């Protein structure tokens, strides 16, 4: 399988990368891991005239803790970088686990966090857990930088607020009061299968009382979505098995999945109910797992 021709640039600074993107606009595409981009190009779904590789920007791969900011993950961090990060293992193992269970090892070695977000695929595994943890994204463009909640990034299937000259540079997980978080996905195989549905939660518990819950669903709507009605069911309530089931039922009602080869709408709704309940149970009991 061959790739079509394109011009190739490998800038050695972010400013230069932004300048190239501003110059070429929609004719250009960013290359990070390439697992989505090259795949689409081989199938003729994308035909960029110009490719701007981020391979020269090693700093975009760092995962650090910045005091007063939170955990900052460079957009070029690979899924295996995230899965194996000691910092993330300690603070949000839920994010490591989400990265660890996607695709297969070869893909996890090159596929990046930035690509997983920017491609705006409804079944992407990292956005739900990051949204549950209240993460923001930083976009660098030729006109400057902006930071916005990841939740506000997506506008539809394969579409987002990112401008043609902008590059996603980092994801920030802010310091937070949450006591537990987790992401549970259901795929048709354990490896190399897209999520049929994914449910991520972050909970703030005080004894048996849930002060706050954030629930984010993948492959349950055109974009990763918060299940706000389900969250409201839990707010300031003493947790019981019935209440968790009620939250699951609520999430199933408020989501809007589509039928596809991987599962019908009805099937996905029921998965949302079950996975939401299980994720809540797990995060309440086991912390950030």
């Amino acid at each position, binding site marked *: 399988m*061959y*790739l079509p021709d394109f011009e190739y640039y490998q800038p050695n600074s972010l400013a*230069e990368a932004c300048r190239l993107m501003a110059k070429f606009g929609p004719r250009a595409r960013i290359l990070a891991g390439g697992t989505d981009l090259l795949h689409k190009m081989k199938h003729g779904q994308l035909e960029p005239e*110009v490719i701007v590789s981020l391979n*020269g920007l090693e700093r975009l791969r760092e995962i650090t803790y910045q005091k007063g900011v939170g955990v900052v993950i460079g957009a070029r961090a690979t899924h295996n970088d995230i899965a194996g990060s000691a910092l993330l293992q300690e603070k949000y193992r839920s994010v490591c686990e989400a990265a660890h269970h996607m695709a297969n090892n*070869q893909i996890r070695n090159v596929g990046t966090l930035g690509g997983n977000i920017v491609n705006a695929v409804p079944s992407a595994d990292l956005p739900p857990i990051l949204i549950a943890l209240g993460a923001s994204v930083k976009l660098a463009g030729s006109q400057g930088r902006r930071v916005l909640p990841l939740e506000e990034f997506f506008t539809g299937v394969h579409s987002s607020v990112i401008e043609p000259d902008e590059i996603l540079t980092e994801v920030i997980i802010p310091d937070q009061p949450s006591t537990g978080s987790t992401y549970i996905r259901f795929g048709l195989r354990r490896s190399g299968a897209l999520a049929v549905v994914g449910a991520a939660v972050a909970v703030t518990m005080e004894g048996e009382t849930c002060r706050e819950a954030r629930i984010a669903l993948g492959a349950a709507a055109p974009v990763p979505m918060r299940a706000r009605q389900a969250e409201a069911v839990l707010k300031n309530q003493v947790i019981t098995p019935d209440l968790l089931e009620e939250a699951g039922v609520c999430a199933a009602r408020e989501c809007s999945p589509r039928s596809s080869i991987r599962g019908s709408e009805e099937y996905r709704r029921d998965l949302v109910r079950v996975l939401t309940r299980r994720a809540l149970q797990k995060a309440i009991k086991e912390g950030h797992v």
Partner: protein
Amino acid sequence: MREQPSNTGETGGTDRVRLSCVVNGEKVSALVEPHLTLLSFLRQELKLLGVKEGCGEGECGACTVIMNGNAVNSCLTLALEAEGARILTVEGLSNGGGLSALQEEFVKHDALQCGFCTPGMLMSARALLDRNPDPGTEEIKEAVAGNLCRCTGYYPILEAITAAAKREREGEQR
């Protein structure tokens, strides 16, 4: 030291670009077209025909090589992304012409039939054993989950990797 490719700024283009990397321990330098995948570069330019193309889209793992210590699908990697990298293919596994312990165990356990998936399978296994000399069955399964075999079945492969790991731990040369 990583060499700077020639098109960091204004001068990029569809023209061929100098690629320098280390393949199976030998320095390689060639002019390549930007659209060439690492798979095509290894097979067509270097004639390393042990690297197989199966699906060409990152599902089957037949094209797996080790790049800077990590198993990657060479079909989804641009050759130019390998600038400055160390690449290991199945041709680089043997010691002075003989088979490595890992390869010998594949033979011993009948872990191949048609052999098409074998080079990729070996490279995923090699990358695993390099970072974890004593993997459990689950870890082995996970390491080769991106390598599809359509004839042997996976159990002989798991057994071969387990046996090779043991031999290597007992001090045998790779």
